């Protein structure tokens, strides 16, 4: 689905969280939202997911999102609850679930869990899982719904480096294969540079720019967005590599 967001503004009382942001995203594309804490990333993502009142216009393929179009994963917090990982992923199929669960729903759950690599956790209670395992189960829940767009708020924040690589590779792969439109908030700039097609850089609610990693990652933009001095190198695969040097006070 083609995302077109125009002049999105979000206020919490008198605080301006997102200030006149416009962006687009295309099917098969991964866009990473980057920015310092409080820069408006999560508010913007919630608005794109239809979960946040806002000014401006958001269209998916030229119309408002339909039920089931968007798979939205909020930040990693789940109430303590006696549900197994399988049951949690099954809830991703909520729209089609009835009292008697169809085989197609169960198959979609098994497929999503296998895709993320959490099949072995199926019978574990969600509150007995580590933060990283829980995050992967919740990601499987989003994929089980078979949405046309993925909006993910820090999907890898609790993952170790191996699982982070696995999940990001899988997300890029599934985005390409299914022609999804994927926007993800990431804190790891280098991971974002490697796996996202474009990076959207936010600062104090405003969009500093949205462009491919090598075009937007420079010392000036990162100093403005994160208040850090950085050195930028090039990785063996051609992606820019950011080395943080010091914070600017």
């Amino acid at each position, binding site marked *: 689905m083609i995302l077109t967001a125009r002049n999105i503004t979000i206020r919490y009382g008198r605080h301006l969280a997102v200030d006149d942001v416009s962006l687009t995203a295309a099917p098969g594309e991964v866009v990473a939202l980057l920015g310092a804490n409080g820069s408006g990333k999560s508010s913007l993502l919630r608005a794109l997911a239809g979960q946040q009142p806002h000014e401006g216009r958001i269209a998916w393929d030229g119309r408002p999102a339909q039920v089931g179009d968007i798979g939205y994963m909020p930040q990693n917090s789940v109430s303590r609850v006696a549900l*197994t990982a399988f049951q949690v992923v099954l809830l991703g199929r909520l729209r089609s679930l009835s009292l008697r669960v169809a085989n197609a729903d169960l198959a979609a759950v098994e497929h999503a869990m296998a895709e993320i690599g959490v099949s072995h956790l199926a019978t574990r209670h969600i509150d007995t899982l580590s933060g990283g395992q829980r995050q992967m189960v919740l990601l499987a829940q989003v994929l089980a719904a078979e949405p046309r767009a993925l909006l993910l708020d820090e999907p890898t924040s609790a993952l170790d480096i191996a699982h982070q690589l696995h999940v990001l590779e899988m997300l890029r792969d599934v985005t390409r294969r299914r022609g999804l439109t994927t926007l993800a908030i990431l804190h790891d700039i280098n991971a974002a540079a490697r796996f996202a097609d474009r990076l959207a850089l936010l600062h104090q609610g405003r969009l500093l720019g949205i462009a491919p990693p090598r075009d937007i990652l420079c010392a000036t933009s990162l100093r403005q967005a994160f208040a850090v001095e950085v050195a930028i190198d090039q990785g063996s695969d051609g992606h820019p590599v950011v080395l943080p040097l010091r914070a600017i006070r």
Partner: protein
Amino acid sequence: MNGAAAWRRANRRHALIILAGGAALGTSFAADLATGPAMLPILSVLRALSGLSDDTMLRAIVLTLRLPIALMAIAVGAALGVSGAVMQTILHNPLASSYTLGISAGAGFGAALVITIGAALPLPEAWAIPIAAFAFAGLACALVAGVGRMRGATPELLVLAGIACLFLFQSLLSLLQFIASPEALPQIVFWLFGSLQRASLSKAAIVTAMLVALSPVLMADAWRLTALRLGDERARALGVRVERLRLRAFVVVSLLTGAAVAFVGTIGFVGLVAPHIARMLVGEDQRLLLPASAMFGAVLLSVASVASKLILPGTVFPIGIITALIGVPFFAWLVLATGRGR
């Protein structure tokens, strides 16, 4: 391990647990009919129930005196159990029950009001009291739901509105107790203890009809209620209209609770503990949790009804006292046993 196969196996196991609860309920129901000042052999009870007995005394004891009480215990226990489960789910609060949001307090005030003004009413007290209790339970529900509609039905707001409602009706109840005549006061206190002795077949049928009519509404929301257990934001992300669901479920269980307590008085503990027992045994899938809560609520109140007649032979203790007396040790044992098993 195949996740779907394991899930199906767990579902079958949980359904068997609910069936086992059904067997326990059947046993308790029979015991409730057999026990009392005249202890009856179970075969005589069965003969009276099936109409094969010519003994008019036996039939009067079983069919007229004990059957309404035994059926009422089951219907009220089931209504309180399922209501407690839904309250705990929609408020994200393990301590929630019909007491939390002032529904029972509203019913108590309604009953006390009729007892106080008594003879001035055109209806016989046996019906005027439950009608008033139900009406004021409905009023308490409308007050809380009204606040929820105006300001967004968050758990915090509903609990605050409910606690305010609870204090309002408790204060009004205290006022009534203060001004009540010496004849009315013990009646009010006795109503507040909760008792099955006021049961009749028609009253049991009304509670059962409410249960039968409203349970499908709750079961239709079973998956959405399960999703709500993950938290409001995640439920919303899954497409649940959280505020609407919370208000709808609240109104349904308030009606159910109102109908239950209107006839028997404020019976505590069942609505709190039965859902916890059910949750420990069948988990959080509300398709199973709701029937299991109803089943274990019914078992708990039915067993309490038997116990209320056995503790001091010849005396029937108020059921509201018994539910806590037998429920607390059982609940403690279950918590400790489950804790060791994990």
